């Protein structure tokens, strides 16, 4: 509101200054003319006809110059009380019917400024003008002897007001001191009573503005009076429209803000999706890697940004890890194979020596039949032992092997050892790692049967159970107490038993290495009640390792 007032004030003050400058110009001209000796002489001196004519021409030339050069000046004239007149370029004549009324209206005034009116002093003129009149005094009588007047084109004032009215919600009008309308854009409407203007309110108002309510609309009137002319320039702004336009602007801002916000949100979603999607993909891939699924971990969609290069690095890293792990597995495999070979390749030299010793004894005693059996058994045993081509053997082969071994041992221990072997048919065609039954049997002999005074029995049986092969090696030896049971798989114990070549420990290790945890040897035993060793092996894998 204050802004509106300030703005309007600036505007109307400018209008006032412009009008003042026009009026000043008219005043200056009037002063010049009234005091010019030419005019004085022409009006009041008794001059010969020729001299008068010269003077008249001089004045006319001056007047004509003013009217011709100044667009704002409509008329310029001198009217003497005696009926003499000098008007514009000399071609115009007085409208005699209105002179008297005019002279009466300005009588006694040194200088007077009219409101806007139709110029009716000059015949056929009837232009809309604002007239500045100045009385001319006779130098002899010091009485008013004539009038000089100069007309300001009304159009100048109108243009001034129209050009300074901004938009359809603004207008400027001008009143003179008495409240007569000098200019109003809707002057005709006012005169026809089609519209009304708050002229009285403007005149009565002591401040420079007021707000009038008109049919629910607020109008802001801002006024500025000119000290020179006394005219009041009034700027009228339709306040409600101002408010409305402000409201509309606010609405516009609001809409724009809302649209921008929506766009921003969408954009944010886009950008974050663009950023987070590859990151999510990366995270998922990492999880796959964690689970060890290297194949599915590779990121296929690579965008051309930082995340993209990260993804690329990730892919590289993953494949590198995969290679390393494969290499590692291979190395481990190799290592295990070597270990397995190391473990199985040993055949007890004591056993070999003892057996050969027994053969010598038998040969010396001419027990050739027995020598043949024992040597054959030993040969079979050795052949199987040194045949390193495969790690895996048929159960049947393993059974034969252990049978050869037991045959030899039975002959060595005479009738102190008896054995039975009972293998189910359906496991004979299965493959197992070799040299697993013999060491257990050996252990049973050396730690069980050997300490028994009566005849010892070793019973080996194998069957299928729950998708596994189960082998039982039973001896009716002295058995083991709880303490012994505890240490049965110990390395130390095994080392003690190093005579037996391949110890229980080694067998257990090999089983676990090859078949994994969950498989291997378990013992059941009680002191004096014999021992049962169980070997649990999965049914053979389709492809043999090795």
């Amino acid at each position, binding site marked *: 509101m204050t802004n509106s007032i300030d703005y309007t004030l600036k505007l109307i003050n400018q209008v006032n200054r412009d009008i003042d400058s026009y009026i000043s110009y008219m005043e200056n001209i009037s002063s010049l003319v009234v005091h010019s000796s030419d005019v004085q002489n022409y009006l009041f001196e008794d001059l010969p006809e020729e001299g008068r004519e010269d003077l008249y021409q001089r004045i006319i030339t001056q007047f004509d110059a003013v009217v011709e050069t100044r667009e704002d000046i409509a008329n310029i004239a001198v009217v003497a009380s005696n009926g003499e007149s000098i008007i514009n370029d000399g071609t115009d004549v007085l*409208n005699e*019917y*209105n002179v008297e*009324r005019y002279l009466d209206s300005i009588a006694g005034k040194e200088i007077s400024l009219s*409101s806007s*009116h*139709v110029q*009716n002093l000059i015949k*056929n003129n*009837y232009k*809309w003008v604002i007239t500045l009149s100045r009385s001319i005094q006779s130098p002899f009588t010091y009485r008013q002897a004539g009038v000089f007047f100069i007309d300001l084109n*009304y*159009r100048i004032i*109108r243009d001034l007001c129209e050009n300074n009215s901004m938009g359809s919600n603004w207008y400027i009008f001008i009143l003179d001191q008495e409240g*007569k*309308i000098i200019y109003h854009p*809707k*002057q*005709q*409407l006012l*005169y*026809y009573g*089609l519209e009304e203007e708050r002229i009285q309110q403007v005149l009565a108002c002591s401040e420079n503005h007021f707000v009038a309510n008109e049919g629910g609309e607020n109008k802001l009137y801002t006024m500025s009076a000119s000290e020179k002319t006394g005219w009041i320039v009034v700027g009228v702004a339709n306040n409600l429209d101002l408010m409305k336009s402000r409201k*509309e*602007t606010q*609405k*516009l801002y609001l*809409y*724009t803000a809302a*649209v*921008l916000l929506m*766009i921003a949100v969408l*954009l944010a979603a*886009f*950008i974050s999706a*663009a950023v987070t999607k590859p990151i999510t993909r990366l995270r998922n891939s990492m999880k796959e890697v964690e689970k060890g699924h290297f194949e599915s971990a590779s990121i296929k969609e690579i965008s*051309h940004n930082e995340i993209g290069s990260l993804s690329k690095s990730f892919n590289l890293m993953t494949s590198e890890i995969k290679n390393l792990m494969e290499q590692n597995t291979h190395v481990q495999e190799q290592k295990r194979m070597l270990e397995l070979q190391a473990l199985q390749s040993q055949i007890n030299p004591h056993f070999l020596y003892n057996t050969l010793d027994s053969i010598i004894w038998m040969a010396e005693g001419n027990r050739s039949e027995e020598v043949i059996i024992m040597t054959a058994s030993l040969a079979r045993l050795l052949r199987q032992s040194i045949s390193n081509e495969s790690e895996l053997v048929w159960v049947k082969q393993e059974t034969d092997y252990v049978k050869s071994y037991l045959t030899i041992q039975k002959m060595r221990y005479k009738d102190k050892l008896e054995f039975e072997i009972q293998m189910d048919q359906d496991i004979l065609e299965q493959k197992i790692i070799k040299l697993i039954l013999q060491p257990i049997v050996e252990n049973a002999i050396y730690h069980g049967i050997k300490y028994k005074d009566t005849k010892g029995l070793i019973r080996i049986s194998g069957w299928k159970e729950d998708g596994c092969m189960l082998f039982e090696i039973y001896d009716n030896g002295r058995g083991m107490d709880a303490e012994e049971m505890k240490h049965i798989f110990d390395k130390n114990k095994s080392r003690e038993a190093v005579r037996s070549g391949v110890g229980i420990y080694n067998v257990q290790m090999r089983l676990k290495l090859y078949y994994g945890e969950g498989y291997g040897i378990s013992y059941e035993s009680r002191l004096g009640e014999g021992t049962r060793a169980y070997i649990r092996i999965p049914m053979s894998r389709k492809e043999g390792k090795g």
Partner: protein
Amino acid sequence: MRLRYLLLLLLAAVVGSALFLYGRSQEKKEVFDIILIPKVIDCDSDFWTQLIDGAYMAAEEYHVRLRMAAPEEESDYERQNELIRWAISEKPDAILLAPISYAENSQAVQMIVENKIKLILVDSDVDIKVQETIIATNNVLAGAAEGAYIKELLDENSQIAIIGHVKGSSTAMEREKGLREGLGEMADRIVDVVYCDSDYNKAYELMMELMETYPDINVVAGLNEYSAVGAARAIRDMNKADEIQVVGFDSSLEEIQMLEEGLFRGIVIQKSFKMGYLGIQAAVTILEGKSVPADIDSGYELITQENLYLEEYQKQLFPFREE
């Protein structure tokens, strides 16, 4: 790359929405399309110039799209009928018509209404009543004002002559009727009523004859501009200005000068500016679905030497014109 596209998209969206909103805010409510057909476009005719001015000022005020077409001769009703048909083809919301002829424009006028275009008559009527409203001077009242003024000028021996414009025309009859009403009991002082057919020269001749026939005539009443001015010219030429007082109708520069001169004692003027203004105003009111009176009086004014240069009349008598 994609980000740059998105930013461009964003920019486009912002500019687009801003333009859209700006456009919306600039949108005007509803603009009515009106065609004005006066009797004539004539720069020398104050009456029509003012009527057109009034219409345009109202058009500006009510945000009306106003177009105009008129014959070059005030009597060319055939041309006016052509223009009416053209206006109908333009499908405006309303047509503001000042019919030249009471009878000859009726057919075209009927077409306006048949084409569902609102019809508003200004100044003159036609012999069918199909218009929404008519805005005109109440000629009986205006005539009565002339009569009442004349009555004040009369002395006991006064004789009055009336010079009408067109015999049988509605305005002439109404004005004469009003004049007689205004004169009251003094109406019997009317010695003759003649018609000049809106021709200065015929009015001049008629006045010459009247002065001869009735040498004691001292008051002449003109019923329009042609009859009043023609009569006044004759009186001036016969140097009878001091003896015969003229009261005229309508205004022109010549009439005003004769008023200044004293040839005329007074003139009754119509308010054609108001007619044009009220015509558009009524059209807008009707188009907005509201009702207006079937007959709107635009008023008149009695102008004498005394009030000629009063602030409120100057603007009516001397419309501001572009030089």
